[in-house]
């Protein structure tokens, strides 16, 4: 049977994708109403990964509550650890030693590099460019090795403590950071040649999934996704914490280098630039670790936090991550609630997918670097 062009285009259908599908950036369900291969409407459903973290923290004492905090986002867990620690330290009025603050900064930047490299590897796969992912994951291994050297773990680090960090800098860590930063800097140039100068890769992302500054504002989008659209807001600059005020770095924004400002390609470029800035921060920070203690005091199992509340926020690899902690003066937190970047960033997906073709869905979703672990806490 031969259909006319009009008849083909007028055929609407419903497509349900997920919740478990390798083309999706996490466990969620997406319902698409399509006309031909054009998406007319998109609806998302999340909740499949919900872990009840906020409830389970209420059942723990303050001493062990840092353990589930890592699970907010296992890939970039230090941001959640840091925000939680900072909030409790504010309630208790704990002064964190400067050495501990600098160690926290070093690990947070390593975590950012690792997360961004993971993003690039995942995106290169969904963009049909798997070759690049094998190179990128090699450098990510290097970052994970450094994290393991310092914390003893490759993910879910559990390294930050109330009042500092769990251990001092491991012998040989600083030298290996210098080696790694030099090597990753060289590799970034290779990625540039491999991906950014590659027409096939650029065409998959440029002009795709464009986010305007107005949408960013309305939907509360933060982090590299917002900066790619020209919104120069980074908590490390606007409200510095953990010694960030001591180091000079740029906040890269999207320029529409190959398409238009705020497209998928800009989101890649911004993250590549952020890796470069993190390398600069790291190379300066490891040479500027002040002498002194790495921990203000040792928390004991029956540690109590005075009645009060605090709200702390950090710039996680995906954007603004904040933590509201309330204590009634007892052994357990009364309430711990997170504001995670992906919780807000996922809200733009239905709007971004409207009017695009089916083949672009994985690439657009991949360019947002969503973490469903963050959405379903």
């Amino acid at each position, binding site marked *: 049977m031969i259909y006319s062009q009009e008849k083909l285009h007028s055929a609407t259908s419903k497509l349900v994708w997920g919740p478990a599908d390798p083309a999706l950036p996490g466990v969620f369900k997406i319902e698409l109403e399509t006309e031909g291969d054009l998406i007319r409407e998109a609806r*998302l459903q*999340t909740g499949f990964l919900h872990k009840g973290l906020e409830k389970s923290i209420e059942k723990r004492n303050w001493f062990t509550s840092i353990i589930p905090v890592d699970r907010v986002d296992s890939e970039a867990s230090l941001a959640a650890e840091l925000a939680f620690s900072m909030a409790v330290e504010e309630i208790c009025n704990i002064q964190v030693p400067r050495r501990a603050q600098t160690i926290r900064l070093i690990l947070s930047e390593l975590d950012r590099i690792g997360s961004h490299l993971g993003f690039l590897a995942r995106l290169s796969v969904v963009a049909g460019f798997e070759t690049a992912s094998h190179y990128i994951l090699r450098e990510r291994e290097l970052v994970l090795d450094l994290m393991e050297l310092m914390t003893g773990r490759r993910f879910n680090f559990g390294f930050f403590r109330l009042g500092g960090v769990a251990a001092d800098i491991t012998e040989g860590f600083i030298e290996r950071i210098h080696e790694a930063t030099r090597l990753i800097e060289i590799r970034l140039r290779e990625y540039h040649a491999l991906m950014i100068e590659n027409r096939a890769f650029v065409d998959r992302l440029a002009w795709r999934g464009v986010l305007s500054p107005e949408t960013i504002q309305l939907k*509360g989008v933060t982090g590299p996704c917002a900066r790619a659209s020209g919104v120069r*807001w980074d908590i490390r600059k606007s409200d510095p914490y953990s010694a960030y005020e001591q180091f000079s770095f740029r906040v890269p924004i999207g320029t529409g280098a190959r398409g238009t400002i705020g497209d998928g390609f800009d989101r890649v470029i911004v993250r590549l630039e952020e890796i470069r800035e993190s390398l600069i921060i790291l190379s300066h920070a490891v040479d500027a670790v002040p002498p002194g203690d790495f921990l203000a005091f040792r928390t004991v199992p029956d540690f109590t936090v005075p009645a009060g*509340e*605090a709200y702390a926020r950090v710039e996680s690899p995906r954007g603004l991550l*904040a933590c509201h902690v309330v204590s009634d003066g007892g052994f357990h937190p009364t309430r711990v*609630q997170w504001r995670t970047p992906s919780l807000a960033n*996922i809200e733009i*997906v239905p709007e971004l997918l409207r009017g695009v073709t089916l083949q672009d869905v994985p690439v657009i979703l991949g360019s947002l670097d969503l973490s469903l672990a963050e959405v379903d806490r």
Partner: protein
Amino acid sequence: MRNPFSELEARFGEAVQVRNFGRSNRYVIEATLTRWVEVAAWLRMEESQRIDFLEALTVTELKGRFILSAFIRSHVQGGEVVLRTSLPVPGATERAEIPSLVGVWPHAEAFETELAPLFGIQFTGSRGVGGVRKFFGTYDGFPLRKNFDWLEESGL
């Protein structure tokens, strides 16, 4: 030191109270439930405030009350503040009704759609324009309330 919310206090009178937030240098504006959306809209529109960004909306159950805190900031003026209201926690299976902030900050929907099923809160007046549904399972009660017996519910 000048109170940056003297205009707000003059306009809303006893419907608002301004105090400090914990040890930080933020202010908390405590508004009555009936006027909290009105206060939010004033903070959003007033030229001296221009609070255009909702960072987070949190709910705490403390001493038999739900305390809602909106952590808000102005990208234009640079200021930040916490807008707060509270109401008694209703019966175990009843939902609390709270006016939605979606009309003031559309981004509130991300938080409201999450908090509603977990705390048993009906956010009234929400346009519900977003396309992200959150489903956390079916429970006998509301999981994030203090009286929710999660061990019994999980069968442990």
